[in-house]
């Protein structure tokens, strides 16, 4: 595979993005935090999608991370943003390791449906659990960092922005490394034909499980960020439309570039907040039209705007069999 950006360049880009946050007005800061956290979970979906499986239930891990953090942080009095993020990632990652092997047998639509089903099971359970606030959820306190308390709202927002951008940036760098690794290439092979991969002596379900657990890990961290940004959690985290939005970001980004995921996530948040502002009752409609437009005019996602022909060789190998023309010849 052709080389993209060097990881060191990426880390510098991340640092630049963090410093850029000092210049942003307050309202964009929280928007960018949510965008970064959504990019993180969408990145997980992209990683998993490289094995050919699209998860429509990342809300499961998003909620698992969020609720895990909220409960553990409340019980032990942990307020540190980094620790909370790690707790979220670990909770969801462990769950992913348990569920992954069970789901690895399924492909395509069934994989998507099963993940969706599991997230809806969690949703159903959370709504009925009065100890966790039922459908209203509950609140948690403001996060701190390294023992520092942020009383100024802007400083607190910036801290969260910085932590989420750095985390997502590092996740992006590790994803790029992963894509170029043996496992990453094996994932592409599993997407093409899992049976042949098995013949070559690689366990395709192992490949899927590892990717699945990584996606879950990212989703858990993302859930922790969403929790810290809103300081509130409710079962909506696990609802299927929440998961749908993450898949939306992944599709918007296309499956070829890590940077595109960030751009797509930011674009979605901008569209959402502007349509919230000007068309408060029809933002879903705007979102739907936007999604249709992207699928129609940018079939390879936003990433195809700047990655045009670079991976031609790889694409040629992965072209699917063309479906027949559906009109009979007269």
């Amino acid at each position, binding site marked *: 595979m052709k080389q993209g950006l060097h990881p060191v360049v990426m880390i510098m880009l991340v640092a630049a993005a963090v410093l850029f946050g000092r210049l942003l007005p307050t309202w964009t800061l929280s928007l960018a935090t949510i965008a970064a956290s959504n990019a993180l979970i969408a990145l997980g979906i992209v990683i998993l999608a490289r094995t050919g499986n699209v998860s429509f239930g990342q809300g499961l891990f998003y909620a698992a991370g969020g609720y895990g953090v909220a409960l553990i942080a409340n019980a032990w009095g942990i307020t540190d943003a980094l620790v909370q993020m790690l707790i979220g990632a670990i909770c969801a990652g462990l769950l992913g390791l348990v569920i992954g092997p069970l789901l690895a047998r399924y492909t395509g639509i069934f994989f998507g449906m099963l993940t969706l089903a599991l997230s809806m099971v969690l949703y159903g*359970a959370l709504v009925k659990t009065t100890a966790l606030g039922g459908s209203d959820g509950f609140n948690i306190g403001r996060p701190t960092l390294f023992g520092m308390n942020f009383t100024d709202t802007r400083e607190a927002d910036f801290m969260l922005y910085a932590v989420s951008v750095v985390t997502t940036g590092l996740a992006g760098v590790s994803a790029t490394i992963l894509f170029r690794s043996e496992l990453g290439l094996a994932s592409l092979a599993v997407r093409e034909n899992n049976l042949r991969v098995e013949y070559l002596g690689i366990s395709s379900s192992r490949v899927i499980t590892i990717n699945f657990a990584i996606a879950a890990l990212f989703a858990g961290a993302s859930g922790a960020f969403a929790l810290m940004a809103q300081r509130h959690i409710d079962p909506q985290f696990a609802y299927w439309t929440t998961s749908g939005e993450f898949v939306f970001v992944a599709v918007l980004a296309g499956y070829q570039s890590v940077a595109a995921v960030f751009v797509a996530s930011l674009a979605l948040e901008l569209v959402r907040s502007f349509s919230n502002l000007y068309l408060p009752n029809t933002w879903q409609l705007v979102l739907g039209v936007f999604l249709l437009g992207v699928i129609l005019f940018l079939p390879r996602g936003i990433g195809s705007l700047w990655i045009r022909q670079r991976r031609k060789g790889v694409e040629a190998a992965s072209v699917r069999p063309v479906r027949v023309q559906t009109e009979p010849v007269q």
Partner: protein
Amino acid sequence: MNFFLTIVLDGLIQASWLFIVALGLTLVFGVLKILNIAHGSFYALGAYIAATAVTTVAAHSLAPSVGFIAMLISVALIGSTVGLLLERGLLKMFYGRDEVVLLLVTYAVFLILEDLTKLIWGVNPIYATQPYELFGNLEFAGLSYVGYDLVLLPVSAAIGFLVWFGLNRTITGKIVLAVIHNEEMSVSMGVRVNRVYAVAFAFGVLLASLAGALTAPKISMQPGLSSDVIILSFAIVVIGGLGSVEGAAVGAILVGLARAASVHLLPQAELFMIYLIMAGVLMFRPEGLFKRETARRI
């Protein structure tokens, strides 16, 4: 014993309308290979249109039976038109793309329809209860049931039989089955696959909106209706096997009974029960109960 009977009857009543929704979903998947997320929105659309028809008729102080008929006719007309327009105007552009892409297209349609119904009918609950008293109350084994609910059972069975008969015993149905089995072969035999696609999708939408209309008198129409229904019907078709009519029937009965049982015994676990059944079925039959084994590409 009575308690058990209540659960079974409630479950079957639930199953009757769920079956009609799921039948549409499974047919659309069978023919077009699209898992239609917007299917629940068509259900909601049917319910809302029915409410408008019923309240309009009631405003002119006509009999509830007129309202019932008006609701069925208006829903049938609008439902099939919407389906036809969507397939020809939108879905057609995405054929040949990945299954997941088509799923996202229907997700976009779901988002759009969700807001459109809110724009047209508002966010407050709407009721259309007039036809609900149409068939009076019936005594059954010492239990009192609303006649309308019990009428749904034969109606749904009849729809199921008609679809089965249409598919398996008529020429048109055979052509549709041919497209389901092998689209390329059908094209080369001269089948106008485009036309089959359009009709199948319109029919799927018609079934969903009809189910919406039939349940409209029983429920209150409000936002969120569509996403609840799609979640249930997904479970049904996955249990039964995507694309199978018999599967939709068995899946609907299982889900209906599970819902009724958990409502009576363990209300906290309603959604949980349904997906537990689904996960259980998929553990042993990954393709659902009624799906034929297909050859694996090597």
